[in-house]
């Protein structure tokens, strides 16, 4: 009795293992087949984002390969961020920095901020957020062009008081019914521009240390 039970159990275990191997094999094959395409799509997406805030005729390097990982402490974010550097014949033109505004209404807001070498903002894009649809999501370029109000703006000094939402006495509009979201975005952009202004040279001089292969984030 005990023996037949053991036989049945080991048979079942073998069968289960066989299925596990077969299923893993199928997934592995599909992964291999789609790997390059997924990587390409991620690259394209990054490039689209970069080119929407940095004019693509202003630089001639391979911008997504010219990438630097910033230690998390430098922008005050929880995770390490990246800088993509645009150069024209090796002269620095502008840099696109990813950052996180941790104080959105509903968690983190991931941003991509491009800053020209003279310190003016070249463009800002929201990469990811969970703000309230219809209210806070106007930070998306799809929904509203509010995010373009940063374009051409410059920090006069470290504590430029114009870099706040209008409600707090600054120059940026808030949204009807949503002040916290734009306030968080303005603050994150201001911090990033500040950081850029004080670290410009080392940002452009450091050797590239991240590529799209490693930066291709597995987003669930």
């Amino acid at each position, binding site marked *: 009795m005990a023996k037949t039970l053991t036989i*049945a159990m080991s048979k079942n275990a073998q*069968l*289960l293992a066989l299925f596990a191997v077969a*299923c893993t094999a199928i*997934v592995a094959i599909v992964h291999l087949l*789609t790997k390059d*395409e*997924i990587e390409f*799509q991620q690259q394209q997406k990054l490039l689209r984002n970069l080119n929407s805030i940095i004019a693509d005729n202003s630089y001639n390097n391979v911008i997504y390969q010219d990438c630097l990982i910033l230690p998390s402490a430098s922008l005050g974010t929880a995770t390490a961020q990246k800088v993509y550097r645009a150069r024209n014949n090796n002269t620095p033109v502008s840099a696109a920095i990813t950052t996180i505004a941790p104080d959105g209404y509903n968690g983190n807001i991931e941003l991509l901020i491009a800053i020209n070498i003279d310190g003016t903002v070249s463009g800002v894009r929201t990469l990811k957020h969970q703000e309230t649809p*219809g209210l806070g999501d106007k930070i998306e370029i799809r929904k509203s062009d509010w995010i373009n109000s940063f374009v051409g703006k410059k920090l006069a000094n470290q504590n430029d008081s114009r870099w706040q939402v209008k409600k707090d006495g600054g120059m940026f509009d808030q949204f009807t019914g949503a002040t916290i979201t734009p306030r968080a975005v303005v603050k994150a952009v201001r911090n990033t521009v500040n950081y850029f202004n004080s670290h410009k040279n080392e940002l452009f001089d450091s050797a590239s240390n991240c590529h799209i292969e490693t930066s291709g984030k597995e987003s669930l």
Partner: protein
Amino acid sequence: MKFTDEYKELAWQGLWKNNPGLVQLLGLCPLLAVTSTLTNAIGLGLATLFVLICSNATVSAIRQWVPKEIRIPIFVLIIASFVTCVQLLMNAYTFGLYQSLGIFLPLIVTNCAIIGRAEAYASKNPVKQASFDGLMMGLGFLLVLMLLGAVREVLGQGTLFDGANLLLGDWANVLRIEVYQLDTQFLLVILPPGAFIVMGFFIAIKNVIDERIAQAKPKIVNQEISRVRVNFDEK
């Protein structure tokens, strides 16, 4: 029972009588979460439909070799593999939609409608019928998703097919219909509570229709179909 009758019955069960969305109320999590626009609803519905057909066919094809003690882990393995494949394929070929469906794509694994069909039907029936059952159940689910997505999108932001290019490519931008102009979106409908409310109305409407049909029909002797759906009450 005649061959075609069997398929008719399967279709009837999947699309109306035992609709996974409206009657079995399975897979509510993705159903309610992604139906804020019609495009998202179609994307998730098609992915679920595909997984359901594949898993039903596979489960049915291997039903003779799988001892009943380990059938559940094997079903889960099969379903999870198909979902992962769909996820990879969508990541590669419908990147924008993949991004907007987010976590709900891998969550198809947890859609009880799929393992429910594998267990209740596919594991006891031949491949052809099982695939057809998968198709019909999947279609039933897809239709509910689409209806919910359409109603919520129209009420919430006054459009239809917003973002269809994510699913179908750039030409699909022409599909976008602006039903009416909204200054601010109708938030309640877009957020999950709205999904629950709209869903409640759908279920109510279905029940009313069923009742009307039952009343309109003169009582005929119940043609009990003995074969179909053996253990629905288990779940």
